[in-house]
């Protein structure tokens, strides 16, 4: 057979197989060029930034790039060695280098992330670094008595390598004590991990409320006559098309202490004037506003699935004697699972990463994890922001994996 194929030639004498391959290659190349812009776009705008973010969370050379002498001393002396005169001499020579390259602030900032209050030690020491005289240990301690603090030296040893897990240590509310053992930070400093758990819980609550609210709406939309359904659909989509900030501020107008809803309650005599409900600037406000904003993301996939569920199935079930509850549970609900899955996943993932709504209406206890990412972004602590963002990403991926195991990602139906 292959012999025959190799013997076949085109009119100009080329083997058919090769001619076919080259003709198809051209078509394939053309097809590839068509998708190339999208591929590049995804690479540049998605894969590369996420890769950089992941790298930034474990790579930080702010300190390591300016301390060649210290790096050498750390390499020669194992962990736990108390800093001796040679160590301080190395530190002093690195400080001179930092002064020349104006890197002291940068280096100090890196140590300050781990041991608070140390940044100014570096900038101060670097300012007069070229005037430091041996014995360096005494000279440095003269400048600041914290220079022999084992915490500072442990932090410097860790930061002397650009690859680090320091930022994840902080993100899990842990710190290293003088012996280098991981311990929990003080109760009043524990914020990140606690907020991480809380963010997933709040996102779960929001998703659940969205599902309960959206299910009947989507069912109504799917079963009403087209003209009425379209009208209702516009009501669902209108807020979807309105600016997020406008909707958030509208909720402030409605929910605040002197707002519309409280005023109505007071006018109707349900509440006393001094008993106005606090519905915003707290967790309640965050949940209400986010449910409203995310509701369309639940309604739309549900609707698209429900629309194509044939009515005949439920009719058949009823005619065979099933109660309406059994019909719903055994026949209708299972067929909406792809829509529920898509909606739940969409709403949950969006809710977990929400930032601006909690910032505006969250008050004290309604902030979410992304607000911490933003906090560190504005403080230019990108490694910490990257570590926190990576935690969010991993959290979402774990849930995605769970979803795939439990329901199956191939059952997802977005529209």
């Amino acid at each position, binding site marked *: 057979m292959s012999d025959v194929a190799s013997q076949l030639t085109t009119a100009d004498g080329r083997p058919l197989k090769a001619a076919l391959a080259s003709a198809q290659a051209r078509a394939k190349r053309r097809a590839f060029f068509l998708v190339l812009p999208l591929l590049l776009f995804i690479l540049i705008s998605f894969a590369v930034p996420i890769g950089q973010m992941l790298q930034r969370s474990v790579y930080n050379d702010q300190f390591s790039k300016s301390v060649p002498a210290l790096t050498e001393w750390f390499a020669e002396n194992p962990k736990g060695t108390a800093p001796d005169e040679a160590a301080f001499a190395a530190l002093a020579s690195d400080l001179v280098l930092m002064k020349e390259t104006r890197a002291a*602030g940068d280096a*100090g900032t890196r140590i300050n992330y781990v041991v608070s209050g140390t940044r100014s030690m570096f900038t101060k020491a670097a300012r007069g670094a070229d005037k430091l005289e041996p014995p360096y240990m005494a000279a440095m301690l003269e400048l600041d008595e914290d220079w022999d603090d084992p915490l500072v030296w442990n932090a410097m040893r860790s930061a002397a390598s650009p690859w680090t897990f320091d930022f994840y240590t902080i993100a899990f509310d842990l710190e290293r004590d003088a012996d280098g053992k991981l311990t929990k930070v003080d109760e009043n400093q524990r914020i990140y991990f606690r907020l991480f758990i809380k963010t997933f819980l709040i996102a779960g609550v929001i998703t659940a409320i969205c599902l309960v609210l959206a299910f009947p709406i989507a069912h109504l939309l799917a079963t009403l006559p087209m003209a009425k359904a379209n009208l209702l659909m516009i009501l669902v989509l209108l807020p979807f098309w309105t600016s997020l900030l406008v909707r958030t501020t509208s909720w402030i107008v409605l929910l*605040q202490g002197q707002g519309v809803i409280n005023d109505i309650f007071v006018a109707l005599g349900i509440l006393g004037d001094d008993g106005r409900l606090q519905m915003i600037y707290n967790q309640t406000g965050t949940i209400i506003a986010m449910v409203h904003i995310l509701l369309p993301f639940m309604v739309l996939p549900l609707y698209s699935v429900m629309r194509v569920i044939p009515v005949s199935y439920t009719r058949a079930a009823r005619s065979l004697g099933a109660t309406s509850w059994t019909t719903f549970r055994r026949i209708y609900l299972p067929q909406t699972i792809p829509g529920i899955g898509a909606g739940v996943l969409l709403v949950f993932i969006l809710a977990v990463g929400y930032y601006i709504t909690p910032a*505006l209406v969250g008050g004290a206890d309604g902030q979410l994890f992304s607000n911490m990412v933003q906090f560190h*972004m504005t403080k230019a602590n990108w490694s910490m922001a990257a570590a926190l963002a990576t935690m969010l990403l991993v959290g979402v991926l774990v849930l995605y994996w769970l979803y795939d195991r439990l329901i199956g990602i191939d059952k997802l139906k977005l529209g």
Partner: protein
Amino acid sequence: MNKKTLLALTTALGGLALPALAEDITIMSWGGSYAAAENEAYYKPFTAESGIGVVSVDADNPATPVKAQVDAGNVTTDVALFLLSDAVRLCDEGQLMPIDASLLPDGVDGTPAEEDFLEGTLSECMIPNDIYATAVAFDASQYAEGEAPSSIADFFDTEKFPGKRGVLKSPKVVLEMALMADGVPASEVYDVLDTDEGVDRAFAKLESIKDDAIYWEAGAQPPQLLADGEVVMTMSYNGRIFNAAVNEGKPFEVLWDGQVYEWEGYVIPEGAPNAEAAMDYIKYATSSEQSASFSERISYGTPRKSAAPLVGNVHGTDIPMAPNLPTYPDNMTNALASSAEFWVDRETELGERFNAWLLAN
């Protein structure tokens, strides 16, 4: 090469260089009413005088994009407007050019520039442009004559002044105000806050208004909270209250006691494409006359002592601007200059503690 050709060559080169001199400079600033005031007081007259065009770029906080540009080695910004804390940090990190303040023009009264700026406001890489304050504001129509809050301690006194308070959601400024309300003199605030007991003391004071606090982040929120009657008083940036009071006629007043003032100013990023023209711009904009003109358009104080008497009425009105500025002598009786030095060291730690404290509601 004889002299004539050399001359011809340099003339030709000079001719080539001229259009480069007249190139536009890119200035990154805060946008909104701030950039509008800059445009009127600086950009337009500067372009008219020097022929250098100004491209104005807005940013939420110029420090973030500028850091990104310098990190990436692709700097497109010539001048940027920075908060002091950002300027100190990026300057220490070598991302901003040092600016020699002695090159700046003398004050209008002949004082050398280095002495003309308010003490402590000049730093290695930043020339201050304006002084703004975070202070307590209240709705004067809610209080009878003589019964309005009169000191920072009143803000933390929920018995004498019941009702909700608007509190900035940031440890910076809030902790300082708590200590001042607790009786710490402004001059000792940072010494106290540098100790663990001092931090505990500040948080204990905050705890006393925790149940009555509404936290805000965006500067537009406090005047809105006051106008809606959500709060009886609120911490606020002085400029926002001024706008509501003067432009919208709201009965808001600023309680200057316990104000925490900061300054912001111009920096040149390392690697700016037109650094020389950028310096020309900074020299022009931070001169006494221009600085006073800026203060008439937005209620931020001028950092130049010689410019203060030049500040006249609010631009286009007959309301005097000076009493509305944080730097007005009567407003400075109990005022604290925010310490950038302290906050670059402690912001992360105290930020974590503040957020943990908020969360533990």
